Structures are given as C-alpha cells and as structure tokens.
C-alpha cells in the first residue's frame, strides 16, 4: 500500500508538471486528468476508496470532460504556439517566490515531525462517510446544497433564450 501511495503520488506530481509545461492545451488537459486519477489512487492507497471513486466520477468523469469540451471548441487553430512568453522571469518570479514559501513551510513541518510515521488508518467506507456527513456536518451539507441551488438558478438565468444580458454582450462585442 505504501508503495502504491508513493508511486501514484509520483505520477500525480509528474502529470501536474506535464500540465504546466505542455504547449498544447488539450495535452495539458489530458495530463490533468491523469493527475486527478493518480490523486484518486492516493485516496485508495490511504484506505479511502469512497473518496477515490468519487474523485474519479466527479472530477475526472464530469468536470474534466467539460474542460476538454471547451478546449476542443476554442483551440482548433491556435493549437501550438512557437513563442513561449511565460519563460520570461517577470511571469514566473512572483508565483515561484510564493511557492518557495510554501515549500519552506512543508520542509519545516517535515523536519520537526517524526520520520517513522507510516500510512495507515481505518478503512473509510461509504457508510462512515455518510454517517459523518449527515450527522455532525449536516449543516454544511445543507448550506452547500443551497449554494448549488443558487448556482443552478443563475446558470439557467444566464443561459436562457432571449436573455437581455447575453444579447447586450453579444451586441457590444461585435
């Protein structure tokens, strides 16, 4: 299990590097899918198969499909660009500094913790997840349901036919 954890973690890291270094948007998205599946495997290795399966169903199976969908629609011609403006220091200096701080925090945390900690824990089944969600965290579940309902209403408002907002934007752009 430990081996599976480290291997899938490695795959996740490598795939994520592939996301940010790839020049073709669709390849980047495919790398992101691989990364998400690797993260799901990490969940499996940690003994949380329910979370792992949901990760694949929701993120890899639904959300990333929409990403691929949009990339397919938008980037038919401007697929590979020769110039790489992001190599210029002023584009990556800020994010790298922030990431360096985070790395420092991680290393400090690892340095003070005990090294011989192994990955183990009880198996998190669907039943225990459900009991936790609808027991002590019922309020949070209800709140996120309300949030999703609001998003649904907004989406159906924005997407409806003869939408004044949409038509105004369309008129303004062209």
């Amino acid at each position, binding site marked *: 299990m430990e081996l599976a954890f480290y291997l899938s973690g490695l795959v996740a890291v490598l795939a994520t590097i592939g996301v940010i270094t790839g020049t073709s948007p669709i390849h980047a998205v495919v790398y992101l899918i691989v990364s998400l599946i690797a993260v799901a495997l990490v969940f499996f290795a940690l003994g949380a198969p329910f979370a792992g*399966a949901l990760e*694949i*169903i929701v993120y890899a*199976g639904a959300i990333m*499909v929409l990403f*691929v*969908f949009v990339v*397919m629609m938008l980037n038919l011609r401007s697929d590979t660009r020769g110039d790489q403006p992001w190599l210029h220091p002023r584009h990556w200096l800020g994010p790298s500094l922030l990431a360096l701080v985070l790395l420092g925090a991680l290393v400090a945390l690892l340095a003070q913790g005990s090294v011989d900690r192994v990955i183990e824990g009880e198996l998190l*089944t669907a039943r225990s997840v459900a009991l936790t969600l609808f027991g002590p965290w019922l309020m949070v579940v209800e709140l996120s349901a309300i949030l999703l309902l609001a998003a649904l209403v907004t989406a159906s408002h924005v997407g409806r036919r003869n939408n004044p907002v949409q038509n105004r934007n369309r008129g303004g752009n062209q």
Partner: protein
Amino acid sequence: MNWWTPEIAAVLWAMFQALVILLGAVLLGAVLTVVERRLLGLWQDRYGPNRVGPFGTLQLVADMIKIFFKEDWIPPFADRPLFVIAPVIAFASLLLSFIIIPITPGWGVADLHIGLLFFLAMAGINVYAVLLGGWASGNKYALLGALRASAQTLSYEVFMGLSLMGVVALAGSFNLRDIVAAQEGFWFVIPQFFGFATFLIAGIAVTHRHPFDQPEAEQELADGYHVEYSSMKFGMFFIGEYVGMLLVSALIVTLFFGGWHGPLLPPILWFAIKTGFFLMLFILLRASLPRPRYDRVMNFGWKICLPLTLINLLATGAVILLVAPDA
C-alpha cells in the same frame, strides 16, 4: 514441495478466474458482432451474413483476419499520442468494469465494497475515448461526433448514477454481491421499476447503442468519432461497443433481476439466460427503432429521465424510512 500452500492456490484460482472472465468478455463481444448482424437480418426480413461457414458462423473468423491484416493507418494531420490512446481507453475502461460483476456465488474477479461506484468511475473515464479520439482525428465529422457524444454521455451519466441509488438504498450497500444477496426473495425490478427503466435508457445512451447513436450517425457524420480509424484501432472501438453492451446487460441482471438467483437451473445458466435476454433486447431495439433527433435526445434526458430518477429516489427513501425507520 512446501510452496504449494492454500494461499498460493487461492491466488492462482483468482487469477485464473480473472483471465477466463476477461477473455470471455472479449470473445463474447466479438461473437456478438456476428450474432447481431444475423439477428438484424432475421428481424428486418433479409439474409444477414450467411456465406462463410455453416449459417455464417465463420464470418467472425473472416472479419478477424480482415481487421488484423488491414493497414494500421494514422492520418498525418492527427494528433498521434491521443489518436493511439483513445481506442485503448475505450476498450480498457469497459473491460475493467467486469471485475465488479459477480457471475455466480463462486465466480467473480473482485469483491469491492464500492463496486457500483467503480463502474460509474469507469463509465466516466470511457467518455474520454470518444472525446479524445474524435478530437485527435483532426476531422470535422469526427469532432462533431465527439462533441455530440460527450454532451450526450455527460447528460445521461448524471441520471445513470441516480437511477442506481434506489437499488443501493434498498440493499444498503454498493457491493454487488450484497445487492444480489438482497434480491434472494424478490427482484429489485419490482420496487425499482423506474430505476430499471432509466438505467436501461442510460446504459444504451452511454454505450452509444442504436436509438442513441447520434455520435456516429452515418447519414450526418459518416461514422462520427471513429471515421479516421482503421484496422485494430477501429476494431477496439467496434468490439468495445459490444463489450459495453454485454457489461450493461450483466449489470442490469445483477442489479435488478436477481443476478444468479433462479429455480432449478444452476446459477451460471440463470446468469447467462438473463444476460442473453437483455443482449437480444438491445439488438431488437436497434432493429426496430428509428433514430431520434439530437435535441430530442438531450431534452428527453434532462427533462424526463432526470426528474423521474430524482422522484424515484425520493419515494424509495420515504418508503424505506416508513417501513424500517430505525434501520
């Protein structure tokens, strides 16, 4: 010989089972291509392929030889890595789903306690085969087919998951063996009829079988997402479709029709008979129904099936709480 322990024997037996089920699924998928053509011929009042061998039984061999020896051509304008990996995803994701299906009390590859979720995850991955294959082909018909397929599959997968939740609630488990065991007395198709109906529709749509095969409609898209594929790559898409059909039939039997349960006959026969019945149903649907318009398909999914599954789930939950409030 002290290495021959019961554990080794159990491992080898499990591996043997997995191999048999894997090969069985692939072979059955291949055989189904010919069976379907013969049955379509029968139902549409014409001869099917009846020349090769007695009653056309060797047609499969002829098809295999042809498909193996064709040139495996990748178009120069295609995106090579994605073009190659798309049929692999199509085939592997469906084959992997077979590991959760319990065929008889003794046969079955894995006993996952998230069994049903594993199937849904694999069905989610399966979308990428069509999507990436269509995009990587660099062909507008393939791209249009892929766009249709992804929109359709995404819409139908939403309520496919929901339609199964009634069964999960009744059985109290995602594990398919538990679900089959819970159907000892009566099959879940009776309390979960709407779940069954919507799952059947979603299953046909997700495998792009006939009434829902707009992604590969010949008249409009010249075969849709796999128009640029040839040889074994096309073969993998093609056999993958039949493996998907087999998978959905086996799942319907397991989830709604009691799996291997049945009087008199041994479990393996009951499972085969029930699965065969649904395979025939799939082929009969293709033989008899016209293809609906694409926007009708989407409307039907979102406006009829999705509310139906939600109401079904609500009613199932209410009944379970009424019958056994403290369970």
